[in-house]
């Protein structure tokens, strides 16, 4: 079985004025991997995701996705190429229902001149949208207004919207942030079970090391804009610098938070 490289990031750098947000980032992602990206706040994880998905243009470096150079392409083009993302804070259309959010996501992929006349709520779109919603177990909420949803459902809707295009690579920015502690594992379980039904490769940013250990096949650790470790989970989490700068910091913060 030959393993296909789907994402290849070479010498990526990003500077905001004098602040270096990313320095010499090199990553190769193989199809089917489940990669966790860890790092303390400000380590450059989200900057990395923003660069790969086209929201930020890297200062230098190249990003190749499925064999084509996508460096500097707009998010819409990156999405259509098959790379989508979800957000740390669920990014939804608050005035619409769950179904309408999904239908807008579906329509966005194919919007053109005919779209002035094509009803948003057509049978084909509805079927696709319902399919994705049920994959993530939120189809019972289909007709609910987004403003009435619980945090966990919002997160799942955000991910469902990213999945409707059938991406090859899905980037999840802190899928479990913002939900109650006891909901984290069930949520992640739903997400993983849903994505596994497709061919999508997953990269997810996560702070909870238990979740990382349970779901990831590989971990990439960021520290001050650079990658300090990249490899199998156990190896990376055992790395001295990772323990010192990331795991230790997060545990310290967690201890400080709890009374």
């Amino acid at each position, binding site marked *: 079985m030959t393993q296909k490289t789907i994402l290849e990031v070479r010498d990526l750098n990003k500077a905001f004025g004098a602040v270096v947000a990313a320095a010499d980032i090199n990553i190769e992602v193989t199809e089917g991997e489940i990669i966790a990206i860890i790092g303390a706040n400000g380590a450059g994880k989200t900057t990395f995701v923003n660069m790969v*998905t086209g*929201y930020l243009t890297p200062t230098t470096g190249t990003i190749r996705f499925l064999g084509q150079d996508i460096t500097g392409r*707009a*998010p*819409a083009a990156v*999405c*259509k190429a098959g790379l*989508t*993302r979800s*957000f740390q*804070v669920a*990014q*939804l*259309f*608050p*005035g*619409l229902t769950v179904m*309408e959010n999904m*239908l*807008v*996501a579906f*329509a*966005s*992929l194919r*919007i053109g001149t005919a*779209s*002035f*006349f*094509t*009803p*948003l*709520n057509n*049978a084909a779109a509805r079927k696709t949208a319902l399919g994705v919603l049920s994959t993530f177990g939120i189809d019972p909420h289909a007709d609910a*207004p987004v*403003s009435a949803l619980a945090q966990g459902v919002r997160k799942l809707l955000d991910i469902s*919207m*990213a999945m409707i*295009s059938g991406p090859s690579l899905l980037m999840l920015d802190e899928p479990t942030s913002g939900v109650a502690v006891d909901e984290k594992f069930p949520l992640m379980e739903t997400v993983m079970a849903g994505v596994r039904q497709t061919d999508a490769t997953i990269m997810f940013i996560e702070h909870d090391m238990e979740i990382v250990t349970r779901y990831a096949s590989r971990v990439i650790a960021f520290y001050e804009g650079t990658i300090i470790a990249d490899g199998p989970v156990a190896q990376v989490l055992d790395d001295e610098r990772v323990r010192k700068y990331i795991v230790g910091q997060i545990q310290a913060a967690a201890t400080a938070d709890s009374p």
Partner: protein
Amino acid sequence: MRQIDYSFIAIVLAALLLALGAVVFPLWLLSTIVNIIAKALVVIGVILLMRGGLVSFGQGLYYCIGGYVVGLGGQLLGITDIVLLLVFAAIIGIVSGAVIGLLMSRFREIFFAMFSLAIAMILYGMLSQSQALGSTDGFNVARVTALGIELTAGQASLLIYLVACALAAILSILTHIYYKSEVGFACLAAGENEVRLQYLGATPNRIFYGTYIIAATLAALGGALTAINYGHVGPNMTYWTQSGEFIFIALLGGSGSVMAAFVGSTLFEFVRTYALEFAPDAWQLILGTVLVLIIFFLPDGLWSLIQPARSSARIKRRGKAPS
């Protein structure tokens, strides 16, 4: 599982009933109703843009362009056929909207509002300086004909009224299709969360561009209808107070439905007529009070009495949720 959309039937029925009114309505009322329809067409365009979070303070630009196309079409080209004039105005509306929209679709929020205002005022400046077009007084528009037949004043009024009813019905149906369309929803979504829409594969600028052209065309048709109805055009059509009036009516009616624009426009005309009659010196005071009361008690416009607004309008009014 297909649901029947009763809106189409409602629109056609309303237009037919209105057209039947020609039998009993006096001439002055026919002219007033045409005026209401003309304004409502412009307002529909304003509402379409508002759904996407864009407030046009310069929709008078296309209103004026439509009016002058009718005026000049009669004077320079000798076109007086009512249908030809309207088609002509629509085409010029599309073309000018397509050109100016290239620029406008890149702007958002206050920048869009002020830029639209500025462009409209440039046209005002140009028209009011041009002696050949009657400068600030404008000029008279020749009486319309139908299929080459000359009409009396009374016949012309009746024809204009019936054409206005038909135009209102056709454009309402088209707008309703747009409301329910992929672009219509995408425009609404772009107004709520533009970045997310980009991440889903859409290009908001293009969605706004298309919507902007539709709004321009509607405004040009409204202006053309006004010019035909009044028999006069002037640069005041693109003055900022005129554009403000369209926003005023949009807020009165609300954005819940295509019909809301007509309700708003009717109330506006009604209040203005009676306010002028009862208090000629203070009619603007009355108009202002009405708007304050509407915003306070019916923040989603008069239409919310008929159909409660969805949460989108409410969210927009109170500002976006923190992210």
